[in-house]
């Protein structure tokens, strides 16, 4: 299986603007930042959550608590995968009891990662609310899950792969649409 790049969906400026807009929407929807915490889903949800935190700080002057969630142990496909995913640490060094948790991930696709993330969060405590922020929503949901904040809606076919590339991990900021070729 090989991936061939089809086209670029977002450039660095596009990503920055989308994150700025999502930051504004989070503040608006929650009427400020009271009780808000951010939780990034490993891996690429984490740098996106860090950027949202910085952006919200710029707008409101508040540094929201930021956690990291590893959902490996909550996946529903562990017995069918042909490779075994490595478990990393979940680092949520604050109580989420009664908080409004904004989950941050790079791509929303089948909804299975979001489902696993919801279960993982609830095992850490009982938040008042969980909201979902994603940079790209590419459709093809297999579960009744939707995002509260979306950077870009992108209609795709199931032969395509959306790849969010971030400076912290991939040494560049952009979103690319790839196609699987055999």
């Amino acid at each position, binding site marked *: 299986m090989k991936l061939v790049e089809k086209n670029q969906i977002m450039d660095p400026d596009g990503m920055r603007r989308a994150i700025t807009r999502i930051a504004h929407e989070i503040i608006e929807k929650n009427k400020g930042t009271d009780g808000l915490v951010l939780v990034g889903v490993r891996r690429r949800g984490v740098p996106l959550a860090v950027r949202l935190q910085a952006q919200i700080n710029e707008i409101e002057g508040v540094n929201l608590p930021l956690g990291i969630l590893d959902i490996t*142990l*909550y996946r529903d496909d562990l017995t069918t995968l042909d490779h075994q995913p*490595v*478990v*990393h640490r979940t680092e949520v060094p604050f109580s989420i009891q009664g908080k409004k948790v904004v989950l941050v991930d790079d791509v929303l696709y089948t909804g299975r990662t979001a489902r696993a993330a919801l279960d993982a969060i609830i095992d*850490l405590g009982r938040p008042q609310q969980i909201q979902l922020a994603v940079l790209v929503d590419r459709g093809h949901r297999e579960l009744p899950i939707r995002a509260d904040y979306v950077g870009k809606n992108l209609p795709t076919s199931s032969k395509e792969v959306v790849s969010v590339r971030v400076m912290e991990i991939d040494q560049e900021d952009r979103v690319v649409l790839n196609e699987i070729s055999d």
Partner: protein
Amino acid sequence: MWKRKDLLGIKELSADEINQILDQAVPMKDIIKRDIKKVPTLRGKSVINLFYEPSTRTRTSFELAGKYLSADTVNIAVSTSSVVKGETLIDTGKTIDVMGADVVVIRHQASGAPHLLAKHIKAKVINAGDGAHEHPTQALLDLFTIKEAKGSIEGLTVTILGDILHSRVARSNIWGLKKLGAKVRVAGPSTLMPPGLGDWGVEVYHRVEDALEGADVVNVLRLQLERQQKGLFPTIREYARQWGLNSRRVSLAKPGAMVLHPGPMNRGVEISPEVADGLQSVITEQVTNGVAVRMAILYLMTGGGVSDVPR
């Protein structure tokens, strides 16, 4: 990626495999410290504890490790099982196997019993101690405890003290420590040293003080009173005086050296109470780490798509 069906000993593991287990135990330890100590990872898997010898911590540790990962765990107490009616190990194993066991954790007084079982059943087999041969999960939790405190095993000097002859913990530890690049010293009465120890790549000491000098880690073995034949050492008091780890002797090791003991302790025999409960002791931490390491092992062995591995 984990490719083995069974975990029978440290001797056959590579350094990479050992490190893989130690790395996966780090996030597992976080789970033990949460309010909700459960993840759904091994839902629908079954883990059977088959213990032919007494055990508190290893059996409970495996049971909790399985439960924290949502596996169904069952303990078979051999003294109340069909074993007392004369059922053979293989027949007992096959019975458990066809009930749908995914993992059988076995402790047995005979060296090689887990290997024999592994050849005859489809379930994955974990050795929880076989005779005086190996106790791989104990060695792994000891390695994890050392690595957690010291950052790395490589280059450390580790002294293993006591009854080496009867100790499966010592054997597994020596192999594991050597593979990860530690310098290993052993010390104990010469009657409690196995022949040919020199070939294991360890330094053999005959005075406890020499063995402890400058050590980073001291792992004190339990004097296995149930396995002693007569005449290997004069009396328990004599053993305690000559070989027991006390504060004065600990002070010969490096400042801040760690003291480990696999438990259960004979307090006042191989280790004095003030050392066992002292600041340098990590004995209770070892118990917590034991659960984390066993969770990592269960996850690696059953959590992924490894069912098609040829046996």
